[in-house]
């Protein structure tokens, strides 16, 4: 039976929509809309009061116009009026308008909330649902403040209708997601858990979502949900397909509810209670058994919903990772799907098997499918399926199959889609290194990578091969020979030239005995390609040449001639020119001994986690990349040994090398160009070294920008950081021990920033809490992205937190760290007091630890007004007529932290003649006095 016929209800609306559809052009449409808007405006403004029907019709038309993409700047009031109508159809349009055009107009919010309140308490289930849906759709903080306390009562009340319970559960979920602080877990929680037992499966469906989200955040409070969920699941999977009537979908009993229950169980470890655990295992076995039964219907809906449950069950089995039989059965089931004719199933099987590969119980079982997966790489039409195949090959790789998998990946790389080449290159590089028994194989593999996909070989990859060759003397001769041969090709990738130049500069002597690769031939080979290279590569080659002078004195004059030529000496590029001049000079004046010392072979690099691995992890995002080694608990003796989570992908551009620069070529160009061997020694060490003494997880190694930091001590807004790509602006406000900082990231380029992510680290969370939501991963060219940081000062602290920003610009990963101006003084509340009070307290704080004094020279002009503004900006009250000497400044305030409050008195005495200040601070806590003194004395 048709429930609705076309356009019933509001004739005027149907006519208007028809008119719009008949418009031949955009202009005609706009004209028609403007006419309608004028009409509606006059109706709303007219003297005659509109009846409910007309109001509903016009509001609905406005909504339609808005949904077409036009701005609507009136009608909100009329929509709000509809909310208090007694008729469902009018109320519905009112609520719809409010939900779609959320407006933070404060007057209206009050009226809207009033209407919602009336409907919530109306005991009319239809009206209650309309209002609950509105709250769930808008989910604003104001609404959470108004209703978060009431909705749990509606949800657990005995007399609430089932459909209202469903809405209330999800409405509460929405409020919990947007404002968790306003939804305190209370006595209602235990009753919510019992909704899993409800007779109405719709109520269970809605409640399970709520419970899952709450359980993720408060696992202990919701522990009891495990046994209830298992019981419910068991009843569903063992039911005959007709038992659940309305909830059976194409012969599958309650598939969506089953999926939700299985997801809820993934919030917890396997049940400890043997009976519950046994029952759950039975359920999972039943689900696996059903997959083998003949289908009850040929319809795709049947198999899809059955498999939805199956895949979720497999996720739970993998999550528990404790039942070897189930894991192996899951693997066999997925193995069948790998060859299924449905592309969806092949895709999902590859994806799911990828996580299965990291379990020690099923790793071997996954490996048996290698041929099928390799075949998928060659035959799948959908690139996303091929991508999953690459992921799975990577996950199943170990020492036994590494050579085969790397060969297949290299093979695929020749024709791979551009979008995934870089990732495959990283994966091949990692696998080749990790499972190399024979380092000649490793060197061959990397050179092949450069040959096949040179453009996609990032700096990390070629730095890495050099690092490994330098650290392993058994492979150096082979590496020199191989690069020499590879360079014979008439056209070779610039990355090959970089690797070749570096390696020959270090180890060319190892093959110089062969007349086919004599010193002069090596030099001529490199130099024949010199002029076709970019500046950074040429700079690198110049360093190779000076290294040659040390290795092969017999070709010294040839090289000196090249260095002396006009194209080097007078090169337009200052970096190349400087290198040529200095290298030439060095080769002329230094004795052989000195030359040999300066140009000695690179020392081995300290061993650590591969920087490429870090890069891949970043590319895939945490969690998406199965850890191919650690979780399998088989530690291979890999070259790098260390597995400490040190992020080594420092951006060279942001990280000028320390001044240990071998030849003191401190020109800025050195920092911008790719590193040449001799001078790059320090740079490579810098890139790969752990120069942070406290390895904070996720912390970056580069320098933290803090140029503008001190400017923010006495003010809250301004530009914190700026380079050629990015500008970071700040607006912040602080009250008591809480603060909110609006961070604006401006993309100064015309190109997108991709994989944009931020994190805050630094101050220990017991002192300072900084919360933020993940930033949007893309920032368009010229656009600005806003992020809000919520800050809570728990106790007094010294170190400011550091904001770490990463993104891809063009092909390269940018990484910036900026010190956030969250300083202790931000949590000041000014305190006014009289002279008498001030000196009374001053005397109370007279022990030596409580006072800190500093005498310092003025850095800025000693202007009275500026100084006053700074002291007020620092957060204290500036107290007049307290100090007997009117030119002194006196201030008082209280630092608010969550745990305590610290009173603070300060006195600043200028000496204009000597251009000096004396600053004295007294607080009840020595660390606070110390820190405040440091901060403030830096300001004058």
């Amino acid at each position, binding site marked *: 039976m048709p429930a609705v016929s076309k356009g019933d209800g509001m004739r005027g609306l149907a006519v208007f929509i028809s008119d719009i559809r008949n418009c031949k052009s955009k202009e005609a449409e706009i004209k028609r809309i403007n006419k309608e808007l004028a009409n509606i405006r006059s109706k709303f403004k007219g003297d005659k009061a509109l009846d409910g029907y007309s109001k509903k019709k016009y509001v609905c038309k406005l909504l339609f116009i808005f949904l077409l993409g036009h701005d609507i700047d009136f009608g909100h009031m009329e929509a709000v009026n509809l909310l208090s109508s007694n008729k469902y159809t009018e109320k519905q349009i009112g609520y719809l308008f409010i939900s779609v055009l959320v407006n933070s107009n404060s007057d209206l919010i009050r009226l809207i909330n009033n209407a919602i309140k009336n409907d919530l308490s109306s005991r009319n289930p239809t009206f209650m649902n309309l209002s609950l849906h509105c709250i*769930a759709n808008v989910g604003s903080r104001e609404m959470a403040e108004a209703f978060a306390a009431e909705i749990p009562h509606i949800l657990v009340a005995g007399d609430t209708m089932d459909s209202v319970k469903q809405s209330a559960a999800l*409405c509460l979920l929405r409020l919990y997601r947007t404002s968790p602080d306003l939804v305190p877990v209370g006595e209602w929680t235990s009753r919510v858990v019992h909704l899993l037992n409800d007779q109405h499966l*719709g109520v269970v*469906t*809605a409640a399970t979502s709520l419970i899952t989200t709450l359980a993720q955040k408060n696992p202990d409070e919701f522990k009891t949900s495990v046994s209830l969920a298992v019981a419910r699941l068991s009843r569903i999977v063992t039911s005959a397909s007709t038992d659940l009537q309305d909830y059976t979908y194409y012969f599958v009993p309650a598939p969506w509810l089953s999926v939700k229950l299985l997801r809820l169980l993934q919030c917890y470890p396997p049940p400890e209670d043997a009976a519950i655990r046994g029952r759950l295992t039975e359920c999972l076995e039943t689900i696996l058994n059903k997959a083998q039964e003949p289908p009850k219907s040929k319809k795709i809906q049947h198999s899809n*919903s059955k498999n939805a449950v199956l895949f979720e069950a497999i996720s739970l089995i993998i999550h528990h990772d404790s039942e070897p039989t189930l894991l192996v059965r899951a693997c066999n089931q997925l193995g069948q799907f790998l060859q299924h004719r449905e*592309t969806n199933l092949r895709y*999902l099987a590859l994806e799911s098997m990828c996580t299965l590969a990291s379990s020690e119980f099923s790793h071997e079982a996954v490996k048996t499918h290698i041929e099928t997966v390799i075949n998928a790489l060659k035959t799948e039409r959908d690139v996303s399926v091929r991508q999953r195949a690459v992921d799975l090959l990577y996950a199943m790789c170990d020492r036994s199959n590494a050579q085969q998998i790397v060969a297949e990946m290299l093979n695929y790389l020749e024709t791979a889609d551009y979008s995934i080449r870089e990732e495959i290159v990283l994966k091949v590089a990692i696998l080749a290194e990790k499972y190399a028994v024979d380092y000649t194989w490793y060197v061959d593999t990397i050179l092949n990578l450069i040959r096949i996909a040179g453009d996609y070989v990032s700096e990390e990859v070629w730095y890495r091969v050099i690092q490994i060759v330098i650290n392993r003397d058994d492979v150096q001769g082979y590496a020199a020979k191989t690069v020499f041969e590879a360079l014979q090709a008439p056209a070779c990738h610039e990355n090959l030239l970089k690797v070749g130049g570096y390696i020959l500069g270090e180890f060319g002597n190892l093959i110089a005995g062969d007349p086919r690769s004599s010193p002069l031939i090596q030099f001529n080979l490199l130099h024949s390609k010199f002029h076709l290279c970019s500046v950074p590569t040429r700079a690198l080659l110049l360093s190779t040449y000076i290294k040659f002078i040390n290795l092969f004195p017999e070709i010294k004059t040839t090289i000196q001639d090249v260095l002396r030529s006009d194209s080097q000496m007078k090169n337009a590029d200052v970096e190349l020119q400087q290198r040529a001049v200095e290298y030439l000079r060095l080769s002329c004046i230094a004795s052989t001994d000195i030359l040999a010392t300066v140009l000695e072979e690179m020392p081995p690099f300290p061993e650590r986690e591969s920087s490429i691995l870090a890069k891949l992890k970043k590319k895939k995002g945490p969690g998406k990349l199965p850890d191919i080694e650690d979780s399998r608990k088989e530690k291979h003796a890999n070259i790098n040994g260390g597995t400490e989570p040190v992020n080594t992908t420092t951006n060279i551009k942001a990280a000028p090398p320390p001044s240990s620069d071998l030849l003191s070529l401190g020109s800025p160009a050195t920092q911008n160009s790719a590193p040449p061997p001799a001078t790059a020694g320090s740079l490579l060490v810098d890139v790969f070294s752990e120069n942070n003494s406290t390895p904070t997880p996720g912390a970056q190694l580069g320098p933290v920008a803090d140029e503008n930091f001190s400017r923010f001590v006495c003010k809250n807004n301004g530009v914190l950081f700026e380079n050629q790509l990015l500008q970071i602006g700040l607006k912040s406000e602080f009250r008591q021990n809480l603060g909110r900082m609006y961070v604006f990231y401006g993309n100064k380029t015309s190109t997108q920033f991709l994989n944009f992510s931020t994190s805050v680290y630094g101050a220990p969370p017991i002192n300072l809490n900084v919360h933020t939501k993940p930033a949007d991963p*893309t920032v368009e060219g010229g656009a600005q992205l806003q992020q809000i940081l919520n800050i809570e000062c728990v106790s007094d602290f010294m170190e400011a937190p550091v904001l770490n920003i990463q993104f891809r610009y063009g092909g390269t990963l940018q990484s910036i760290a900026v010190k956030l101006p969250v300083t202790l003084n931000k949590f000041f509340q000014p305190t006014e007091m009289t002279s008498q009070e001030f000196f009374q307290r001053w005397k109370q704080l007279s022990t030596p630890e409580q006072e800190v004094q500093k005498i310092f020279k003025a850095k800025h002009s000693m202007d009275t007004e500026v100084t006053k503004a700074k002291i007020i900006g620092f957060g204290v009250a500036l107290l007049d007529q307290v100090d007997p000497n009117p030119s002194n400044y006196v201030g008082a305030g209280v630092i608010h932290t969550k745990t305590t409050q610290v009173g603070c008195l300060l006195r600043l005495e200028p000496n204009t003649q000597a251009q000096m200040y004396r600053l004295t601070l007294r607080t009840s806590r020595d660390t606070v006095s110390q820190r405040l003194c440091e901060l403030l004395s830096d300001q004058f």
Partner: protein
Amino acid sequence: MIRFILIQNRAGKTRLAKWYMQFDDDEKQKLIEEVHAVVTVRDAKHTNFVEFRSFKIIYRRYAGLYFCICVDVTDNNLAYLEAIHNFVEVLNEYFHNVCELDLVFNFYKVYTVVDEMFLAGEIRETSQTKVLKQLLMLQSLD
């Protein structure tokens, strides 16, 4: 959770847009265009899933209409794929052989159908019988 639901025709005209997270209007427009671009280039041999920014789109095509649900990457693909179909069957029953025009002229009713089946980015009700009974009851109200 569901981040948004979109119904678009092949030309890219939006027939329903339901958002479960905060986006400003420009961002919404951009998302609508991006979804259209990634979904319409795919053919029947492709999966019904596309990675999309840090989420994924589960979609299904019915005649000239694409029904797209954007969910978190860890969500169950097939469950949402069938949730789309369940939704379409309800629309089909409610509008008696639903066509694109029904969604245009009754856009305000489509929102009611959505709210009955999906709320706060979660699946609210899956029983077609229960949803249709409720919709008929609402239809009978003044």
